[in-house]
């Protein structure tokens, strides 16, 4: 049984700009007695503010909100990438976060090498990596390109490889950013079936999207994020209506 518990989580990003990135300037600032002041007034971006969510098997959560509302940060936090500044995060069950189509993909390496690396990142055995390779090969239809560096791929091929890899792994908890909507029309038809099967296989889905269609089609609950806080939490139709009422100006 998969479970996600986000307990009053806050995430503050330190703003290192200009001199804060430099050791030399930090040391000189300390020497001239300016560091103390700097410390207290350290500027941070409050990406998430006391966000509290509980999800159990069967939940399909959609995250909506404008750019910078904290959707991706929340996904990264659930994935364990950012350790919370305050609060606690607990995730039970295997997790896969599809945040970026080229996740850790090295364009200098061949498609095959990238597949192997992804398998190793997920702790797969040699046999499992072979199965992964076969599956990705079938779906992405890269033919001989699989043994060429990814740098030589067309953008369509790159999307196919990224997508095939991302969806070849079946987690209990699936976190998705909206990137997967990209791709040419032909590909989308084929991709949709595959994506749907991964989503069906996952016990919990957290989907971040700007697109009302995707959220309404896949989610049973929607969270409206605004400036790092939960603005509204409820049934998709209801939340989407309020969200659209506010963000899309009436004509």
């Amino acid at each position, binding site marked *: 049984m998969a479970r996600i518990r986000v307990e009053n989580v806050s995430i503050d990003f330190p703003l290192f700009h200009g001199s804060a990135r430099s050791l030399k300037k930090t040391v000189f600032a300390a020497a001239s007695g300016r560091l103390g002041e700097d410390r207290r007034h350290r500027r941070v971006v409050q990406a998430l503010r006391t966000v509290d969510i509980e999800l159990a098997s069967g939940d399909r959560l959609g995250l909506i909100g404008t750019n910078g509302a904290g959707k991706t940060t929340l996904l990264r936090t659930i994935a*364990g990438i950012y*350790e*919370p500044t305050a609060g606690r995060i607990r995730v039970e069950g295997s997790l896969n976060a599809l945040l970026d189509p080229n996740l*850790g993909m090295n364009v200098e390496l061949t498609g095959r090498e990238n597949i192997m690396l992804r398998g190793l990142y*997920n702790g797969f055995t040699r046999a499992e990596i072979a199965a992964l390779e076969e599956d990705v090969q079938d779906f992405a239809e890269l033919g001989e390109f699989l043994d060429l560096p990814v740098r030589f791929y067309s953008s369509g091929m790159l999307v196919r490889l990224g997508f095939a890899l991302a969806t070849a792994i079946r987690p*209990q908890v699936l976190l998705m950013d909206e990137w997967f909507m990209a791709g040419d029309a032909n590909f989308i038809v084929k991709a949709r079936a595959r994506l749907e099967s991964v989503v069906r296989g996952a016990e919990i889905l957290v989907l971040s999207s700007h697109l009302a269609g995707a959220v309404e089609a896949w989610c049973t609950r929607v969270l409206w994020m605004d400036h790092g806080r939960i603005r509204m939490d409820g049934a998709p139709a209801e939340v989407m209506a309020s969200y659209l009422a506010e963000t899309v100006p009436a004509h």
Partner: protein
Amino acid sequence: MDSLSPDTLPRLRTSTLDIGADSELTHAHRQILASTDVVNGLKLWRLGCTLAWLDIKLKYRGSMLGPFWLTISTGVMVAAMGALYGTLFHMDLKTYLPFVALSLVLWNALSALVSEACSTFTQSEGTIRSIRMPFFLHAFRVVVRSVISLAHNVPVIMAVFGLYSSWPGAVGMLSLPGFAIWLIDAFAACLLLGSFCARFRDIPPIVSSVMQIAFYVTPVIWRAEQLGRKGWWLPFNPFDALLEVVRAPLLGSAPSASVWALASCYSVAFCTVSWLLFARVRGRLAYWM
């Protein structure tokens, strides 16, 4: 059309994630989390080795000789510097060349590791921001990569030793504990410099100037004996003792107990500092990418 057969596809291992707030952690708790990170990183040794090997392969992809360019360039450098400095210092090449070949290879490995340690985490920025992985994995990758590079230079040393038939004999085995110290210090260097350089982006140039100075004040191309009584300050140079614990046995003489003690003390101090820093900042590293 659908090529999916879910049963044959690999399944992810079930795992549990439980992360508390960084600011509320106690000192002891941070140590435990950092230790877990190291243990989990070691468990991923297969991934670490693959990443290291692909790094080497990529660097030399497209060149006919591949990583053996390392061997050739070291060979040329050793021959040139050996001949030049042998003449300058009026040294007998038969004893000087094996010394300088070994010294240079070891020093280059050390200084390359230090400079690569700076980008331990920044190099893997994309991975760190997209998947939760033990941070020690990145250190492991850098260390393995350095070991592979060093291994490619072994033929040069063998050739020089063969040429002057200056094989160390059984005493050479005493360099193994020295290498073990180097390995541990290498991990510590990656964690320390990697974390520091993730936070402060102007460190790598500072580190490379420090290493440049260190090269001149460490007996790499000159011998400690040449300084005579003027060499009283050498024990204060950690690089001297560290170099000597590996180099001396390979040149056929066991390092003195004081050299051993110095190398161990410096290493313990270095590893302690590195560990404390890593345990303190581990939870913040992802924010600095």
